[in-house]
Protein backbone atom coordinates (compact mmCIF):
# COMPACT_ATOMS: atom_id res chain seq x y z
CA UNK A 1 0.00 0.00 0.00
CA UNK A 2 2.02 2.88 -1.27
CA UNK A 3 1.14 6.24 0.17
CA UNK A 4 2.48 9.67 -0.57
CA UNK A 5 4.63 9.44 2.51
CA UNK A 6 6.22 6.18 1.36
CA UNK A 7 7.00 7.65 -2.04
CA UNK A 8 8.91 10.43 -0.35
CA UNK A 9 10.91 8.40 2.15
CA UNK A 10 11.21 5.19 0.14
CA UNK A 11 9.74 3.08 2.94
CA UNK A 12 9.42 -0.65 2.36
CA UNK A 13 6.09 -2.24 3.30
CA UNK A 14 5.53 -5.86 4.01
CA UNK A 15 2.67 -8.21 4.74
CA UNK A 16 2.11 -8.88 8.39
CA UNK A 17 0.89 -12.10 9.97
CA UNK A 18 -1.51 -11.56 12.84
CA UNK A 19 -2.92 -14.24 15.05
CA UNK A 20 -6.57 -13.68 15.88
CA UNK A 21 -7.80 -15.83 18.70
CA UNK A 22 -8.13 -18.56 19.90
CA UNK A 23 -9.22 -16.59 22.96
CA UNK A 24 -11.15 -13.90 21.20
CA UNK A 25 -14.44 -12.64 22.63
CA UNK A 26 -16.18 -12.54 19.28
CA UNK A 27 -15.34 -15.98 17.94
CA UNK A 28 -18.31 -17.73 19.57
CA UNK A 29 -16.11 -20.39 21.04
CA UNK A 30 -12.50 -20.99 20.29
CA UNK A 31 -11.39 -20.27 16.75
CA UNK A 32 -7.96 -19.18 15.68
CA UNK A 33 -7.53 -17.21 12.48
CA UNK A 34 -4.09 -16.68 10.99
CA UNK A 35 -4.38 -13.45 9.05
CA UNK A 36 -2.00 -12.11 6.45
CA UNK A 37 -2.55 -8.38 6.44
CA UNK A 38 -1.46 -5.69 4.05
CA UNK A 39 -2.05 -2.57 6.09
CA UNK A 40 -5.64 -3.10 7.16
CA UNK A 41 -6.64 -5.31 4.26
CA UNK A 42 -6.86 -9.06 4.66
CA UNK A 43 -4.77 -10.90 2.07
CA UNK A 44 -5.04 -14.46 3.27
CA UNK A 45 -6.84 -16.28 6.06
CA UNK A 46 -6.19 -19.66 7.51
CA UNK A 47 -8.65 -20.90 10.14
CA UNK A 48 -7.04 -23.22 12.69
CA UNK A 49 -9.61 -25.55 14.17
CA UNK A 50 -9.70 -28.18 16.84
CA UNK A 51 -9.44 -26.22 20.06
CA UNK A 52 -12.84 -27.54 21.11
CA UNK A 53 -12.41 -31.05 19.75
CA UNK A 54 -14.14 -33.44 22.15
CA UNK A 55 -13.93 -36.59 20.03
CA UNK A 56 -17.68 -36.88 19.64
CA UNK A 57 -17.39 -39.55 16.95
CA UNK A 58 -14.94 -41.58 18.99
CA UNK A 59 -17.23 -41.34 22.01
CA UNK A 60 -20.10 -42.48 19.82
CA UNK A 61 -18.45 -45.75 18.93
CA UNK A 62 -17.21 -46.41 22.45
CA UNK A 63 -20.49 -45.93 24.28
CA UNK A 64 -23.80 -47.74 24.11
CA UNK A 65 -26.65 -46.24 22.09
CA UNK A 66 -28.42 -45.22 25.25
CA UNK A 67 -25.38 -43.54 26.77
CA UNK A 68 -24.44 -41.69 23.65
CA UNK A 69 -27.91 -40.19 23.29
CA UNK A 70 -27.25 -38.05 26.31
CA UNK A 71 -24.05 -36.66 24.81
CA UNK A 72 -25.12 -35.62 21.36
CA UNK A 73 -26.79 -32.39 22.43
CA UNK A 74 -23.25 -31.18 23.06
CA UNK A 75 -22.37 -31.48 19.38
CA UNK A 76 -24.19 -28.24 18.74
CA UNK A 77 -25.20 -26.86 22.08
CA UNK A 78 -27.41 -24.11 20.72
CA UNK A 79 -29.65 -26.44 18.79
CA UNK A 80 -29.53 -29.63 20.78
CA UNK A 81 -32.97 -30.68 19.63
CA UNK A 82 -31.76 -30.92 16.05
CA UNK A 83 -28.74 -33.08 16.80
CA UNK A 84 -30.94 -35.48 18.76
CA UNK A 85 -33.46 -35.37 15.95
CA UNK A 86 -30.91 -36.23 13.26
CA UNK A 87 -29.61 -39.19 15.27
CA UNK A 88 -33.13 -40.37 16.08
CA UNK A 89 -34.14 -40.18 12.41
CA UNK A 90 -31.11 -42.16 11.30
CA UNK A 91 -31.65 -44.89 13.89
CA UNK A 92 -35.40 -45.07 13.32
CA UNK A 93 -34.98 -45.46 9.58
CA UNK A 94 -32.42 -48.22 10.05
CA UNK A 95 -34.65 -49.90 12.60
CA UNK A 96 -37.82 -49.44 10.54
CA UNK A 97 -39.55 -47.84 13.49
CA UNK A 98 -42.71 -45.79 13.03
CA UNK A 99 -42.88 -42.72 15.24
CA UNK A 100 -46.32 -41.95 16.70
CA UNK A 101 -47.94 -38.81 15.21
CA UNK A 102 -48.12 -36.99 18.53
CA UNK A 103 -44.38 -37.41 18.96
CA UNK A 104 -43.79 -36.04 15.45
CA UNK A 105 -45.84 -32.95 16.28
CA UNK A 106 -44.00 -32.47 19.56
CA UNK A 107 -40.69 -32.80 17.71
CA UNK A 108 -41.63 -30.09 15.25
CA UNK A 109 -42.84 -27.82 18.06
CA UNK A 110 -39.67 -28.15 20.15
CA UNK A 111 -37.53 -28.03 17.03
CA UNK A 112 -38.97 -24.73 15.90
CA UNK A 113 -38.75 -23.37 19.46
CA UNK A 114 -35.10 -24.34 19.39
CA UNK A 115 -34.66 -22.59 16.06
CA UNK A 116 -36.01 -19.41 17.64
CA UNK A 117 -33.69 -19.63 20.65
CA UNK A 118 -30.71 -20.27 18.39
CA UNK A 119 -31.51 -17.28 16.18
CA UNK A 120 -32.11 -15.12 19.26
CA UNK A 121 -28.68 -15.93 20.61
CA UNK A 122 -27.20 -15.25 17.19
CA UNK A 123 -28.92 -11.89 17.06
CA UNK A 124 -27.66 -10.89 20.50
CA UNK A 125 -24.07 -11.95 19.97
CA UNK A 126 -23.91 -10.63 16.42
CA UNK A 127 -24.80 -7.14 17.54
CA UNK A 128 -22.23 -7.37 20.29
CA UNK A 129 -19.69 -8.37 17.62
CA UNK A 130 -20.58 -5.18 15.80
CA UNK A 131 -20.16 -3.17 18.97
CA UNK A 132 -23.80 -2.61 19.86
CA UNK A 133 -24.68 -3.29 23.47
CA UNK A 134 -28.10 -4.35 22.32
CA UNK A 135 -27.71 -7.99 22.48
CA UNK A 136 -26.14 -10.37 24.79
CA UNK A 137 -27.66 -9.55 28.14
CA UNK A 138 -30.61 -7.54 26.90
CA UNK A 139 -33.54 -7.79 24.51
CA UNK A 140 -33.19 -11.16 22.73
CA UNK A 141 -32.22 -12.91 25.94
CA UNK A 142 -35.43 -11.83 27.62
CA UNK A 143 -37.45 -13.98 25.21
CA UNK A 144 -34.85 -16.71 25.09
CA UNK A 145 -35.17 -17.22 28.83
CA UNK A 146 -38.92 -17.67 28.51
CA UNK A 147 -38.43 -20.41 25.94
CA UNK A 148 -35.80 -22.01 28.15
CA UNK A 149 -38.29 -22.11 31.00
CA UNK A 150 -40.65 -24.02 28.72
CA UNK A 151 -37.87 -26.42 27.70
CA UNK A 152 -36.98 -26.95 31.33
CA UNK A 153 -40.52 -28.03 32.08
CA UNK A 154 -40.56 -30.79 29.49
CA UNK A 155 -36.93 -31.90 29.36
CA UNK A 156 -35.59 -30.98 32.79
CA UNK A 157 -32.73 -29.08 31.17
CA UNK A 158 -32.38 -25.64 29.71
CA UNK A 159 -29.82 -26.37 26.99
CA UNK A 160 -28.83 -30.04 26.87
CA UNK A 161 -32.29 -31.44 26.44
CA UNK A 162 -31.93 -35.10 25.45
CA UNK A 163 -35.66 -34.79 24.78
CA UNK A 164 -35.97 -36.33 21.33
CA UNK A 165 -35.29 -40.03 21.75
CA UNK A 166 -35.05 -42.87 19.27
CA UNK A 167 -38.69 -43.75 18.55
CA UNK A 168 -40.36 -40.65 19.92
CA UNK A 169 -39.91 -38.06 22.62
CA UNK A 170 -39.18 -38.25 26.32
CA UNK A 171 -42.17 -36.71 28.05
CA UNK A 172 -45.69 -35.59 27.23
CA UNK A 173 -46.17 -31.94 28.21
CA UNK A 174 -49.05 -31.00 30.46
CA UNK A 175 -51.96 -29.02 28.97
CA UNK A 176 -50.79 -25.89 30.84
CA UNK A 177 -47.50 -26.08 28.96
CA UNK A 178 -49.32 -25.61 25.65
CA UNK A 179 -51.18 -22.63 27.12
CA UNK A 180 -47.93 -21.02 28.21
CA UNK A 181 -46.44 -21.64 24.79
CA UNK A 182 -49.34 -20.09 22.93
CA UNK A 183 -49.25 -17.10 25.28
CA UNK A 184 -45.57 -16.67 24.43
CA UNK A 185 -46.35 -16.93 20.72
CA UNK A 186 -48.94 -14.18 21.05
CA UNK A 187 -46.47 -11.70 22.47
CA UNK A 188 -43.36 -12.75 20.52
CA UNK A 189 -44.17 -11.02 17.17
CA UNK A 190 -44.28 -7.70 19.00
CA UNK A 191 -40.87 -8.42 20.46
CA UNK A 192 -39.47 -9.12 17.00
CA UNK A 193 -40.93 -5.80 15.88
CA UNK A 194 -39.07 -4.24 18.78
CA UNK A 195 -35.73 -5.73 17.66
CA UNK A 196 -36.39 -4.61 14.13
CA UNK A 197 -37.23 -1.09 15.25
CA UNK A 198 -33.86 -0.90 16.96
CA UNK A 199 -31.71 -2.70 14.41
CA UNK A 200 -33.05 -3.16 10.90
CA UNK A 201 -32.99 0.39 9.63
CA UNK A 202 -30.36 1.61 12.04
CA UNK A 203 -27.89 3.65 9.94
CA UNK A 204 -24.83 2.42 11.84
CA UNK A 205 -25.96 -1.16 11.43
CA UNK A 206 -26.65 -0.64 7.73
CA UNK A 207 -23.21 0.90 7.23
CA UNK A 208 -21.55 -2.02 8.93
CA UNK A 209 -23.47 -4.75 7.13
CA UNK A 210 -24.76 -3.59 3.73
CA UNK A 211 -22.69 -4.79 0.82
CA UNK A 212 -19.97 -6.58 2.78
CA UNK A 213 -19.26 -10.29 2.90
CA UNK A 214 -21.09 -11.00 -0.32
CA UNK A 215 -21.43 -14.74 -0.84
CA UNK A 216 -21.84 -15.51 -4.52
CA UNK A 217 -24.04 -18.38 -5.54
CA UNK A 218 -21.28 -20.30 -7.30
CA UNK A 219 -18.94 -19.96 -4.31
CA UNK A 220 -21.66 -21.13 -1.95
CA UNK A 221 -22.22 -24.21 -4.11
CA UNK A 222 -18.50 -24.96 -4.32
CA UNK A 223 -18.20 -24.93 -0.55
CA UNK A 224 -21.43 -26.85 0.15
CA UNK A 225 -22.94 -23.98 2.11
CA UNK A 226 -26.47 -24.71 3.35
CA UNK A 227 -29.07 -23.11 5.56
CA UNK A 228 -29.96 -19.40 5.67
CA UNK A 229 -26.55 -18.44 4.22
CA UNK A 230 -27.19 -20.47 1.07
CA UNK A 231 -30.78 -19.33 0.77
CA UNK A 232 -29.64 -15.70 0.95
CA UNK A 233 -27.34 -16.33 -2.00
CA UNK A 234 -30.28 -17.46 -4.09
CA UNK A 235 -30.02 -21.22 -3.64
CA UNK A 236 -33.46 -22.48 -2.61
CA UNK A 237 -32.34 -25.33 -0.39
CA UNK A 238 -34.45 -26.14 2.63
CA UNK A 239 -34.74 -29.77 3.68
CA UNK A 240 -38.15 -29.13 5.18
CA UNK A 241 -39.36 -28.44 1.63
CA UNK A 242 -36.96 -30.40 -0.55
CA UNK A 243 -36.89 -33.73 1.25
CA UNK A 244 -39.76 -33.30 3.67
CA UNK A 245 -39.51 -35.27 6.86
CA UNK A 246 -41.70 -35.61 9.94
CA UNK A 247 -44.95 -33.66 9.51
CA UNK A 248 -43.56 -30.72 7.55
CA UNK A 249 -45.50 -31.65 4.37
CA UNK A 250 -48.76 -31.06 6.26
CA UNK A 251 -47.75 -27.60 7.39
CA UNK A 252 -47.93 -24.41 5.42
CA UNK A 253 -44.84 -22.28 5.66
CA UNK A 254 -42.39 -20.50 3.47
CA UNK A 255 -38.77 -21.34 3.12
CA UNK A 256 -37.08 -18.04 3.76
CA UNK A 257 -34.60 -16.92 1.20
CA UNK A 258 -33.92 -13.24 1.34
CA UNK A 259 -31.83 -13.22 -1.77
CA UNK A 260 -31.25 -9.68 -2.76
CA UNK A 261 -27.46 -9.62 -2.68
CA UNK A 262 -26.27 -12.35 -0.34
CA UNK A 263 -24.52 -9.88 1.96
CA UNK A 264 -24.46 -9.86 5.74
CA UNK A 265 -27.54 -7.69 6.05
CA UNK A 266 -29.56 -10.20 4.03
CA UNK A 267 -28.42 -12.99 6.30
CA UNK A 268 -29.57 -10.93 9.29
CA UNK A 269 -32.93 -10.30 7.67
CA UNK A 270 -33.41 -13.95 6.72
CA UNK A 271 -33.01 -15.04 10.32
CA UNK A 272 -35.50 -12.44 11.54
CA UNK A 273 -38.02 -13.65 8.96
CA UNK A 274 -37.28 -17.26 9.82
CA UNK A 275 -38.23 -16.61 13.44
CA UNK A 276 -41.57 -15.23 12.29
CA UNK A 277 -42.03 -18.31 10.11
CA UNK A 278 -41.29 -20.58 13.06
CA UNK A 279 -44.09 -18.92 15.02
CA UNK A 280 -46.49 -19.82 12.21
CA UNK A 281 -45.31 -23.42 12.19
CA UNK A 282 -45.71 -23.82 15.95
CA UNK A 283 -49.19 -22.25 15.86
CA UNK A 284 -50.33 -24.76 13.21
CA UNK A 285 -48.87 -27.65 15.21
CA UNK A 286 -50.62 -26.52 18.37
CA UNK A 287 -53.92 -26.43 16.50
CA UNK A 288 -53.47 -29.86 14.91
CA UNK A 289 -51.66 -31.93 17.53
CA UNK A 290 -53.41 -35.28 18.04
CA UNK A 291 -53.68 -37.34 21.22
CA UNK A 292 -51.82 -40.61 21.52
CA UNK A 293 -48.55 -42.27 22.36
CA UNK A 294 -45.34 -40.29 22.44
CA UNK A 295 -42.82 -43.06 21.91
CA UNK A 296 -42.90 -46.15 19.71
CA UNK A 297 -40.97 -48.36 22.08
CA UNK A 298 -39.95 -47.53 25.60
CA UNK A 299 -36.19 -47.34 25.84
CA UNK A 300 -34.07 -49.30 28.22
CA UNK A 301 -30.36 -49.09 28.90
CA UNK A 302 -29.54 -52.12 26.74
CA UNK A 303 -31.34 -50.91 23.65
CA UNK A 304 -30.02 -51.93 20.25
CA UNK A 305 -30.47 -50.79 16.70
CA UNK A 306 -30.75 -53.35 13.92
CA UNK A 307 -27.75 -53.93 11.67
CA UNK A 308 -27.62 -51.51 8.77
CA UNK A 309 -26.34 -48.17 7.74
CA UNK A 310 -27.86 -44.91 6.70
CA UNK A 311 -27.62 -41.16 6.55
CA UNK A 312 -30.40 -38.94 7.84
CA UNK A 313 -30.47 -35.18 7.98
CA UNK A 314 -32.59 -32.37 9.39
CA UNK A 315 -32.69 -28.66 8.64
CA UNK A 316 -31.04 -27.07 11.65
CA UNK A 317 -30.87 -23.29 12.19
CA UNK A 318 -27.46 -23.35 10.50
CA UNK A 319 -28.12 -25.70 7.60
CA UNK A 320 -28.17 -29.40 6.86
CA UNK A 321 -27.28 -31.31 9.99
CA UNK A 322 -26.77 -34.94 9.14
CA UNK A 323 -25.81 -38.12 10.84
CA UNK A 324 -24.29 -41.18 9.17
CA UNK A 325 -24.75 -44.25 11.32
CA UNK A 326 -23.40 -47.76 10.81
CA UNK A 327 -24.84 -50.36 13.13
CA UNK A 328 -23.82 -53.99 13.39
CA UNK A 329 -26.67 -54.91 15.71
CA UNK A 330 -24.62 -54.78 18.90
CA UNK A 331 -25.23 -52.50 21.84
CA UNK A 332 -22.70 -49.98 20.51
CA UNK A 333 -22.75 -48.08 17.22
CA UNK A 334 -20.07 -49.27 14.80
CA UNK A 335 -19.46 -45.83 13.33
CA UNK A 336 -20.99 -42.45 13.95
CA UNK A 337 -20.32 -39.59 11.59
CA UNK A 338 -21.66 -36.07 11.91
CA UNK A 339 -22.23 -33.72 9.03
CA UNK A 340 -22.17 -30.37 10.69
CA UNK A 341 -23.46 -27.29 8.92
CA UNK A 342 -21.05 -25.04 10.80
CA UNK A 343 -18.03 -27.03 9.63
CA UNK A 344 -19.00 -26.68 5.96
CA UNK A 345 -20.17 -23.08 6.25
CA UNK A 346 -16.98 -22.06 8.03
CA UNK A 347 -14.81 -23.39 5.22
CA UNK A 348 -16.11 -20.59 2.98
CA UNK A 349 -14.79 -17.94 5.39
CA UNK A 350 -11.39 -17.41 3.68
CA UNK A 351 -13.22 -16.65 0.42
CA UNK A 352 -15.38 -14.03 2.12
CA UNK A 353 -12.64 -12.35 4.12
CA UNK A 354 -9.98 -11.83 1.46
CA UNK A 355 -9.99 -8.16 0.50
CA UNK A 356 -12.05 -7.06 3.49
CA UNK A 357 -10.69 -4.62 6.07
CA UNK A 358 -9.77 -6.09 9.43
CA UNK A 359 -12.69 -4.36 11.15
CA UNK A 360 -15.15 -6.30 9.00
CA UNK A 361 -13.79 -9.71 9.92
CA UNK A 362 -16.12 -10.15 12.85
CA UNK A 363 -19.08 -8.68 11.01
CA UNK A 364 -18.66 -11.24 8.25
CA UNK A 365 -17.71 -14.15 10.46
CA UNK A 366 -20.64 -13.51 12.79
CA UNK A 367 -23.12 -13.34 9.96
CA UNK A 368 -22.55 -16.93 8.84
CA UNK A 369 -23.61 -18.07 12.30
CA UNK A 370 -20.98 -20.62 13.16
CA UNK A 371 -20.96 -22.47 16.45
CA UNK A 372 -17.47 -23.68 17.20
CA UNK A 373 -18.39 -26.81 19.19
CA UNK A 374 -20.34 -27.82 16.09
CA UNK A 375 -17.23 -27.27 13.96
CA UNK A 376 -14.80 -29.12 16.20
CA UNK A 377 -17.13 -31.74 17.67
Amino acid at each position, binding site marked *: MATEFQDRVDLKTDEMIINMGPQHPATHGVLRLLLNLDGETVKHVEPV*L*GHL*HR*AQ*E*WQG*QNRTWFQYQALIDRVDYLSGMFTSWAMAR*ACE*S*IDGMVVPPRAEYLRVIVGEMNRITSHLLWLGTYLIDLGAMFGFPFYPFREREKLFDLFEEIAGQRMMYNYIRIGGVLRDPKPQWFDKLSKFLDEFPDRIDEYEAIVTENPIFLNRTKGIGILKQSVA*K*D*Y*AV*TGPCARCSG*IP*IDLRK*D*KPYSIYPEIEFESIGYNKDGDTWDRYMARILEMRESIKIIRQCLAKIPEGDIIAKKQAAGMRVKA*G*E*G*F*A*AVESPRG*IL*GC*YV*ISTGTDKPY*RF*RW*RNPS*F*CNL*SVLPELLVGAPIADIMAIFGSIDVILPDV*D*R
Partner: protein
Amino acid sequence: MSTETKPPEPQAPLPAGQYGQFLSEHGINSERLPDSLGAETIVLAKQDLDSAIKLLRNSSEINLDLLITISGVDMADSIDAVYHLWSYSHKGELVIKVRALKTEIPQDQLPTVPSIARFWPSANWHERETYDLVGIRFTGHPYMRRILNPWDWDGHPLRRDYKQPVDCLNDKNPHSFR
Protein backbone atom coordinates in the same frame (compact mmCIF):
# COMPACT_ATOMS: atom_id res chain seq x y z
CA MET B 1 -35.37 -88.82 7.01
CA SER B 2 -32.84 -86.15 6.99
CA THR B 3 -33.87 -82.92 5.44
CA GLU B 4 -31.48 -81.86 2.78
CA THR B 5 -30.14 -78.42 3.28
CA LYS B 6 -29.47 -76.58 0.10
CA PRO B 7 -26.45 -74.34 -0.03
CA PRO B 8 -27.53 -70.72 -0.29
CA GLU B 9 -27.85 -69.64 -3.87
CA PRO B 10 -25.19 -67.16 -4.94
CA GLN B 11 -26.80 -63.76 -5.03
CA ALA B 12 -27.11 -62.22 -8.44
CA PRO B 13 -25.42 -58.82 -8.70
CA LEU B 14 -27.91 -56.03 -8.30
CA PRO B 15 -28.95 -54.30 -11.52
CA ALA B 16 -27.32 -50.93 -12.00
CA GLY B 17 -29.37 -48.00 -10.80
CA GLN B 18 -29.79 -44.59 -12.38
CA TYR B 19 -26.34 -43.34 -11.47
CA GLY B 20 -24.58 -46.64 -12.11
CA GLN B 21 -26.07 -46.71 -15.59
CA PHE B 22 -25.06 -43.13 -16.24
CA LEU B 23 -21.49 -43.94 -15.25
CA SER B 24 -21.33 -47.09 -17.36
CA GLU B 25 -22.54 -45.09 -20.38
CA HIS B 26 -19.42 -43.00 -19.90
CA GLY B 27 -17.20 -46.04 -19.56
CA ILE B 28 -16.85 -46.22 -15.77
CA ASN B 29 -17.65 -49.51 -14.08
CA SER B 30 -19.22 -49.56 -10.66
CA GLU B 31 -20.55 -52.23 -8.37
CA ARG B 32 -23.93 -51.66 -6.77
CA LEU B 33 -24.58 -52.38 -3.11
CA PRO B 34 -27.97 -52.58 -1.38
CA ASP B 35 -29.46 -49.10 -1.04
CA SER B 36 -28.89 -47.32 2.22
CA LEU B 37 -32.15 -45.69 3.29
CA GLY B 38 -33.30 -45.15 -0.29
CA ALA B 39 -30.03 -43.73 -1.58
CA GLU B 40 -28.27 -45.61 -4.35
CA THR B 41 -24.93 -46.97 -3.12
CA ILE B 42 -22.10 -47.86 -5.45
CA VAL B 43 -18.49 -48.98 -5.08
CA LEU B 44 -15.95 -47.33 -7.33
CA ALA B 45 -12.36 -48.21 -8.06
CA LYS B 46 -9.80 -45.67 -6.85
CA GLN B 47 -8.62 -44.68 -10.30
CA ASP B 48 -12.19 -43.94 -11.49
CA LEU B 49 -13.11 -41.65 -8.61
CA ASP B 50 -11.86 -38.39 -10.09
CA SER B 51 -13.53 -38.74 -13.47
CA ALA B 52 -16.73 -40.20 -12.02
CA ILE B 53 -17.22 -37.33 -9.58
CA LYS B 54 -16.47 -34.74 -12.24
CA LEU B 55 -19.07 -36.35 -14.52
CA LEU B 56 -21.71 -36.62 -11.80
CA ARG B 57 -21.18 -33.05 -10.70
CA ASN B 58 -21.05 -31.32 -14.06
CA SER B 59 -23.57 -33.19 -16.20
CA SER B 60 -26.77 -31.22 -16.49
CA GLU B 61 -29.18 -34.13 -15.97
CA ILE B 62 -27.46 -35.72 -12.94
CA ASN B 63 -26.00 -32.59 -11.35
CA LEU B 64 -24.93 -33.96 -7.97
CA ASP B 65 -23.32 -30.70 -6.89
CA LEU B 66 -23.73 -30.78 -3.10
CA LEU B 67 -21.00 -32.72 -1.34
CA ILE B 68 -22.66 -33.55 1.94
CA THR B 69 -19.78 -35.29 3.61
CA ILE B 70 -16.77 -37.54 3.20
CA SER B 71 -16.43 -40.12 5.92
CA GLY B 72 -13.80 -42.72 6.57
CA VAL B 73 -14.89 -46.08 7.94
CA ASP B 74 -12.64 -48.80 9.28
CA MET B 75 -14.51 -51.95 8.22
CA ALA B 76 -13.42 -55.50 8.98
CA ASP B 77 -11.32 -56.11 5.88
CA SER B 78 -11.03 -52.71 4.27
CA ILE B 79 -10.82 -49.02 4.98
CA ASP B 80 -13.54 -47.16 3.10
CA ALA B 81 -13.89 -43.57 2.05
CA VAL B 82 -17.61 -42.85 1.80
CA TYR B 83 -18.88 -39.90 -0.23
CA HIS B 84 -22.43 -38.65 0.20
CA LEU B 85 -23.47 -36.62 -2.82
CA TRP B 86 -26.71 -34.66 -3.02
CA SER B 87 -27.98 -32.10 -5.41
CA TYR B 88 -28.91 -28.48 -4.80
CA SER B 89 -31.57 -28.53 -7.51
CA HIS B 90 -33.30 -31.92 -7.18
CA LYS B 91 -33.76 -34.78 -4.75
CA GLY B 92 -31.09 -37.12 -6.09
CA GLU B 93 -28.83 -38.88 -3.60
CA LEU B 94 -25.83 -41.07 -4.19
CA VAL B 95 -23.43 -42.80 -1.85
CA ILE B 96 -20.03 -43.68 -3.30
CA LYS B 97 -17.67 -46.01 -1.50
CA VAL B 98 -14.02 -46.32 -2.37
CA ARG B 99 -12.35 -49.29 -0.73
CA ALA B 100 -8.76 -49.80 0.26
CA LEU B 101 -8.39 -53.49 1.16
CA LYS B 102 -6.33 -54.02 4.28
CA THR B 103 -4.40 -56.82 2.62
CA GLU B 104 -3.22 -54.42 -0.06
CA ILE B 105 -2.01 -51.70 2.29
CA PRO B 106 1.77 -51.93 2.80
CA GLN B 107 2.97 -52.37 6.38
CA ASP B 108 3.11 -49.14 8.42
CA GLN B 109 1.62 -47.08 5.62
CA LEU B 110 -1.68 -45.35 5.22
CA PRO B 111 -4.21 -46.36 2.58
CA THR B 112 -4.42 -43.87 -0.26
CA VAL B 113 -7.40 -42.49 -2.14
CA PRO B 114 -7.19 -39.76 -4.79
CA SER B 115 -8.20 -36.33 -3.53
CA ILE B 116 -11.09 -34.43 -5.05
CA ALA B 117 -10.25 -31.22 -3.19
CA ARG B 118 -8.33 -29.90 -6.20
CA PHE B 119 -11.53 -29.21 -8.10
CA TRP B 120 -14.10 -29.21 -5.28
CA PRO B 121 -13.16 -26.90 -2.39
CA SER B 122 -15.75 -28.27 0.03
CA ALA B 123 -13.90 -31.61 0.03
CA ASN B 124 -10.78 -29.94 1.39
CA TRP B 125 -11.66 -29.92 5.09
CA HIS B 126 -13.57 -33.20 4.96
CA GLU B 127 -10.52 -34.96 3.52
CA ARG B 128 -8.25 -33.40 6.12
CA GLU B 129 -10.60 -34.57 8.85
CA THR B 130 -10.76 -38.08 7.43
CA TYR B 131 -6.97 -38.19 7.27
CA ASP B 132 -6.79 -36.97 10.85
CA LEU B 133 -9.33 -39.31 12.41
CA VAL B 134 -9.36 -42.41 10.20
CA GLY B 135 -5.98 -42.26 8.53
CA ILE B 136 -6.69 -42.23 4.82
CA ARG B 137 -4.10 -40.32 2.83
CA PHE B 138 -5.73 -38.36 0.00
CA THR B 139 -3.15 -38.12 -2.74
CA GLY B 140 -2.96 -34.77 -4.46
CA HIS B 141 -4.57 -32.85 -1.61
CA PRO B 142 -3.15 -29.32 -1.41
CA TYR B 143 -2.65 -29.30 2.39
CA MET B 144 -2.81 -32.77 3.90
CA ARG B 145 -2.45 -31.96 7.59
CA ARG B 146 -4.38 -32.82 10.71
CA ILE B 147 -7.31 -30.48 11.29
CA LEU B 148 -8.97 -31.39 14.61
CA ASN B 149 -6.21 -33.10 16.58
CA PRO B 150 -2.89 -31.43 17.38
CA TRP B 151 -0.36 -31.66 14.56
CA ASP B 152 1.93 -33.98 16.53
CA TRP B 153 -0.78 -36.48 17.54
CA ASP B 154 0.08 -40.17 17.28
CA GLY B 155 -2.25 -42.52 15.44
CA HIS B 156 -5.71 -42.14 14.00
CA PRO B 157 -8.38 -42.32 16.71
CA LEU B 158 -11.25 -43.84 14.74
CA ARG B 159 -9.24 -46.89 13.67
CA ARG B 160 -10.37 -50.08 15.35
CA ASP B 161 -6.82 -50.88 16.49
CA TYR B 162 -6.19 -47.42 17.95
CA LYS B 163 -4.61 -47.38 21.38
CA GLN B 164 -5.31 -44.41 23.59
CA PRO B 165 -2.24 -42.54 24.79
CA VAL B 166 -1.29 -42.95 28.42
CA ASP B 167 -3.27 -40.39 30.36
CA CYS B 168 -0.50 -38.48 32.06
CA LEU B 169 -2.77 -36.66 34.49
CA ASN B 170 -5.28 -39.22 35.73
CA ASP B 171 -3.57 -42.56 35.29
CA LYS B 172 -1.92 -44.57 38.05
CA ASN B 173 0.98 -45.15 35.72
CA PRO B 174 4.54 -44.80 37.08
CA HIS B 175 5.39 -42.57 34.12
CA SER B 176 2.59 -40.16 34.80
CA PHE B 177 3.01 -36.91 36.64
CA ARG B 178 1.59 -38.15 39.90
